[in-house]
């Protein structure tokens, strides 16, 4: 007995004919192939991405670690990808899907730069807003095919009128926007800290670049303290009217593990 209807109590076959199992899988007398399944979980993963808007642009950061489960497998993985001088994408989640998306964006950039009659001084036609619209469509299409790209991304940069732009897109096709954003663990650990700096859009228009960078660095440090899939080497990018300033080998400074003394309930402690 199983859950397939062939085995259920049925009227007599000699009177009503045999049950037609053609819609069932071959393993149960039917003609159908087994259900197709796609990615059910990510393999090699990157952790949180953080970003915050300030008055002239956006600051975005992510560490350089790619984990294989709980193993810190690759320690020089750059998860911030510059698209053009107006947009940077920060990737969390599956690293091979990130590589696929990076190639996709690279092809898109090649197409965008065929140029034609564009005057050189006109700047890129693809703003961070346009790029986010495109990426979110890609993600939504893939999740609707039940074949998601296992990522959560932040798109940071400038919109078509050169105002700071920051938005989120993920494997479900979900999108949202806010003066500060974080993916993964960062959404729980860093976002409350960033919201103290920019509780609303008006506050982000007051924030200086130095304050924004300082806030992000502080959050990266907190994440390293508490996120077991993180590392102290990270990438950070500042996108403003002058272009993208991307540093890919920054180290956390002034760590203090004094707080660890206060933690109870782990390890060999008995009290």
């Amino acid at each position: 007995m199983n859950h397939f209807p062939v085995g259920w109590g049925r009227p007599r076959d000699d009177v009503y004919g045999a049950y037609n199992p053609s819609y069932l899988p071959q393993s149960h007398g039917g003609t159908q192939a087994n259900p197709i399944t796609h990615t059910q979980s990510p393999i090699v993963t990157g952790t949180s991405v953080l970003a915050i808007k300030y008055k002239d642009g956006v600051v975005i950061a992510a560490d350089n670690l790619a984990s294989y489960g709980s193993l810190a497998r690759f320690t020089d993985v750059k998860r911030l990808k510059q698209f053009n001088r107006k947009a940077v994408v920060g990737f969390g989640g599956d690293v091979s899907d990130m590589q696929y998306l990076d190639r996709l964006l690279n092809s898109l950039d090649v197409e965008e730069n065929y140029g034609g009659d564009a005057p050189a001084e006109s700047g890129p036609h693809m703003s961070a807003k346009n790029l986010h619209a495109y990426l979110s469509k890609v993600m939504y299409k893939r999740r609707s095919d039940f074949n998601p790209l296992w990522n959560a991304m932040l798109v940071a940069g400038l919109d078509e009128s050169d105002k700071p732009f920051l938005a989120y897109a993920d494997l479900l096709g979900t999108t949202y926007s806010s003066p500060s954003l974080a993916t993964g663990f960062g959404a729980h650990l860093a976002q409350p800290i960033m919201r103290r700096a920019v509780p609303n859009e008006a506050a982000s228009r007051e924030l200086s670049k130095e304050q924004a960078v300082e806030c992000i660095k502080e959050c990266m440090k907190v994440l390293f303290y508490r996120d077991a899939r993180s590392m102290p080497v990270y990438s950070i990018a500042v996108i403003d009217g002058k272009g993208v300033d991307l540093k890919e080998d920054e180290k956390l400074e002034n760590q203090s593990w004094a707080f660890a003394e206060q933690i109870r309930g782990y390890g060999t402690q008995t009290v």
Partner: protein
Amino acid sequence: MTSIGTGYDLSNSVFSPDGRNFQVEYATKAVENGGTAIGIRCKDGVVLAMEKLVTSRLMKKDANKRIATVDRNIGVVSAGLVPDGRHFVSRARDEASSWRSTYKAPIPVASLANRMGSYVQAFTLYSSVRPFGITAIVGGFDAETEVDVDGAVGSGPKVGSGGKTQGVKEGGPYLYMIEPSGLYWGYYGAATGKGRQAAKAELEKLNLDPKKGDTISLEEGVKEAARIIYVAHEDSKDKEFELEMTWISAVSGPTKGRHEDVPKELKDEAERLAKKALEGDDEMEE
């Protein structure tokens, strides 16, 4: 042309008794009516130049570009039917893009020329299509430095298994010209279109063959290209024209490995010298 009208020239893909494909020859005629296009392969890059005939005063100046970018490091200029040129470029872009998705690296210029030669040749095989009414010049720069695999994670080992070979240099500037028949050759200097004879004569005077000593630099190439287009235009002096020029250098050069417009200052300078050189010639003749 002999044997016109004997009936063997009415359909593509048909041989005449003496082994000619007339439709392809007629397509070549369409090329010979177009503005002159040239390409020069210099020591450290490639220059492409086009004589753009101005058909109407109402056209927007310096718009309507005729030299197109394929991938990032390759340029295409063609003489002949302009819409056929666009078709050619569109296919070349598709080839470059599919090469990228297969090999995760930019297409080498030689491979692009090969694929486009095959594509153009296919349009001589069937009576349901006509040959391309263009001759296309394809110029590009294959990276000499090691190209990152698109989207690669990490930098990989420096030496040993899976590591990098130190000091290997490959790539460089390349130039090809593809004819309506699908035939293509590699060139040091290529010219097509109405003024090709005059242009070829000028190209042959330049030091372009590396086997015969030092060849000209990219910047000299730009100036020569401008001058040659001006020389080639002499026969149709009554018509106005615009000069369009692009160039491609190594990653270490002025275009950082990309196919780009020649900067305005350099182009203006090249045009000034070109005009001066022509005036000089006229004076000598008088």
